[in-house]
Every structure is written in C-alpha cells, then in structure tokens.
C-alpha cells in the first residue's frame, strides 16, 4: 500500500487510517467526522489529498493528445485558469473526472482521481497506440486542501494576491514552491495546494499554525462535505458506463466538442438527483428507488447530513422518471418517500 509524505504525522496524531484505493489515508482524527465537518463549514480545515494524481501534457504534440481526450476546450483557457471536466472515451463514457490547469501556453496539468491514475494511464497508452505523451508525476507531488470560510483571509499570509474562483498561481510562497488554486470539494471558500513531497509537512504545519481554528480533517468529512455540496464522486455518481449527459453534467462538455465523443446526438439515459429523507432514516449507496412499486434507480452516495441533520443522497434514476410523482427509497424492506432537492443541498 502507498503512503503519503504526511502519513507519519497522521499516525502520530491518532488518525483512524484506511486503505483508500491502495493509499493509506486518514478517515478522521480524534475530533471525529462531525466536528471536522462543522469546522470546515464554520472555520477552516486541512485535508491530505495526496492520493490525487498529477498528469502533465507538455508541448504541442502532447497537447494534441490532451485535446482529443479531455472534455475541456484547453485552447479557450487562459494561463492560470482551472476548468472541471472529464477524460472521455470516443463513445462519451467517462474514464475519470478531472481538473485541468493551464500552466502555460503549451502545457496543462491534469489532476486525476487517485483511484483512477493507473486506469487513465492505461487508457491513454491504448488510445495513442503505446505513444502517449503524458507525463505522470503523481508520485512526486503532495496535495493539501485548505477549506472553509476563514481561508479567505488566512490565505493572505501565504499568497498575498487574491485569487478568483477556478484560478491558480504557481510560485514560491513562504519559501516553498507550489501551485495554489482556488478550488475545492467542500462547497466552501477554499484552496488546494500542490507541492513536492519533501515540502508537504512544512506546508501542513504552516497552515495549522495560521490559526487555532484550522483543524486537520479526514476523508470522512471530505465525503460528507462534498455530498452536501452536491459534487459527484467517481465510482459513485460517475463510472465507466455513464456519459456526462447521463448524470446532468453536460454543461462541462462544450457543445462544439461533443462530436469528438459521440455525444452530439446522444440522449441521456439517466438523470442524477439529490434528495432528503424527512423520516429518521439514512439513505446509503446501493439502496433502490421505486415509483409505483417499480425499480427506477439507486442511491449513488448517501449519508447523514451534519448541517441539515437529515439523511441526504444523490441517486441515478432512469431518464423517463416523472419527478412530480412520488418516489420512494427502500431501506431495509421499508419504503420512505423522498423529497427531491435541487443540488447543492447547502447553498452558499
């Protein structure tokens, strides 16, 4: 199993560690998921997300390959811009969902999910007949997410110039070379910092020392925060069989690029919804949704919402389901009426 540059820190701070797709990462610290979740909603938290992968496409030939697999229009992006999108197959199905960072005119840095690094590399290798020009530098970098309302002012002592949403800077800050982007996976104001492994502990402690209101958070809070923010997670809302159109994410595939992925004519087969349960029950991944006693879909992610104090979930349901009529979620042989909520659950 892989570890991160911060694994010794997590272990010495009594984190509960799990094997997350072959990387040892903290689920939560002694404070617990609820306290960590609330800290990010009200103050600030830091997360070790070093399992995320860094793929560079450097030079015009590599960029040409990127153009044929990324949903993002990289030529429409300006330097220091970040865009969300997908690595797509020619049939429009999703290999991964990714952030694309335009580092300079002839280079992009693509951030892929840790669980998908090998799959993406294999796909690119096949797609370009063994001549993929991508450079996988995932093992060289650590990633720390710095999230929560207090980050807006706290970041100034690291990066003095304000960053717009979905932009980044690359430079040396407090003596450490890093990429700092105004992105995140919590629905809060926040930043993600990418640095060489050797600098990870320095940055981690630098962030903790900014304020006593910054606390370390694990993957448990990260998952409950992203779910409240209505953000999809690969392996749950997204997978190898679905296209972005199937999960209401067509907006991230520009119309003029859809022909590259067979998505021009393609109709969505499913839709992604968010719902709450007003009973005391928690929807969990895999639970079935029914309408008129017929199966119409399933829960893709579900949890107890720390903020709403109710069970919330995202689900994938058949495209033809009438949302005006009652849909029920089956939990241990009992059916509960769902209340569909326009995502995100937490509006900021």
């Amino acid at each position, binding site marked *: 199993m892989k570890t991160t540059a911060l694994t010794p820190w997590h272990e010495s701070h009594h984190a509960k560690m799990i094997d997350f797709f072959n990387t040892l990462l903290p689920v939560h610290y002694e404070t*617990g998921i609820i306290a960590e979740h609330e800290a990010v909603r009200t103050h600030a938290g830091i997360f070790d997300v070093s399992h995320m992968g860094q793929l560079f496409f450097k030079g015009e030939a590599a960029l040409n390959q990127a153009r044929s697999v990324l949903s993002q229009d990289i030529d429409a992006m300006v330097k220091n811009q970040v865009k969300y999108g997908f690595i797509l197959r020619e049939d429009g199905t999703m290999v991964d969902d990714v952030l694309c960072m335009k580092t300079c005119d002839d280079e992009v840095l693509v951030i892929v999910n840790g669980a998908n690094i090998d799959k993406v590399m294999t796909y690119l290798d096949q797609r370009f007949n063994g001549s993929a020009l991508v450079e996988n530098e995932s093992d060289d970098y650590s990633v720390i997410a710095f999230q929560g309302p207090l980050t807006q002012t706290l970041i100034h002592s690291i990066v003095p110039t304000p960053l717009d949403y979905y932009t980044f800077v690359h430079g040396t800050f407090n003596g450490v070379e890093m990429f700092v982007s105004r992105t995140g996976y919590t629905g809060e104001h926040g930043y993600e910092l990418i640095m060489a492994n050797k600098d990870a502990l320095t940055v981690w402690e630098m962030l903790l020392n900014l304020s006593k209101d910054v606390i370390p958070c694990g993957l*448990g809070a990260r998952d409950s925060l992203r779910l409240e923010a209505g953000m999809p997670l690969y392996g749950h809302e997204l997978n190898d069989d679905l296209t972005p159109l199937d999960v209401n994410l067509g907006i991230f595939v520009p119309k003029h690029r859809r022909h590259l992925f067979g998505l021009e004519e393609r109709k969505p087969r499913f839709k992604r919804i968010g719902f709450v349960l007003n009973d005391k*029950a*928690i929807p969990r991944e895999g639970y079935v949704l029914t309408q008129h006693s017929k199966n119409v879909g399933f829960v893709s992610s579900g*949890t107890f919402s720390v903020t709403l104090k109710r069970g919330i979930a995202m689900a994938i349901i058949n495209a033809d389901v009438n949302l005006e009529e009652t849909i029920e979620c089956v939990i*241990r042989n009992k059916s509960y009426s769902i209340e569909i909520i326009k995502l995100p659950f937490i509006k900021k």
Partner: protein
Amino acid sequence: MNSVKEGYYYLSTHEWVKQESDTTFLVGISDFAQHALGDIVYVALPEVNDTVKQGERFCDVESVKAVSDVYSPVSGTITEINTSLEDSPELLNQDPYGVWIMKVEGSIDTSGLLDSAAYTLHLENEH
C-alpha cells in the same frame, strides 16, 4: 481507549449484556464498537414486545459513514427500549457502558458469550 467493563458479558461482534436480575438484562455496544463506528447519528431501535434471540440482529446503528447491524447477546422479549437514543444517539459514543439500547426479559447462554477477560483477549487478537 477501547476499555472493557468487568462484570459484563460480550459477543465477539462487540455488544454487551449486563444482568440486572435473574431474568432481566440490559444490552448495549462496547467501547470498541463506538470507537470503530465513529460519530453515531441514528439508532434504528427495535420495539417493545419484539422477541430477540442470542446471536441474532435486533437493531442498526448508523454513523456518518456507515450502517452496522447490532446483535443480541440475550434471548427473550424486549420490555423497554432506551428512547433517549431517538434524539441523542451520540450517548452511545459518550458512555458506551452506561447507556443501554434495550432491556430484555429472558435468559443468556454464557457458553456463547465472552466474559470481560475473554473479550479483552478477543480485542487483542482480532485488532
């Protein structure tokens, strides 16, 4: 961390039973169980007059992350459930050996249970 209470009997699945009188028993979950679950946010309680059987599931406990089955260390009929868990499920985290889930009129077969020494050994071996 992971304390074991003397005088209680345990299932290897981390539930405890405490004998109150000849035929009445209190049932809860161990300190190890509440640590493993993390923040408990919901307890799907059984109902009074339900019958329970030693070794069989009688309720679910949910944390933010997951749902877990809870097994009964005693056989008999439920005479009382701890309704304070409906609104304050976190009590199970705060005081695992003081907070019970159900009171049962029935009997235990100690050959199928672990005493505190055996349960301590079980925790050391398994985890």
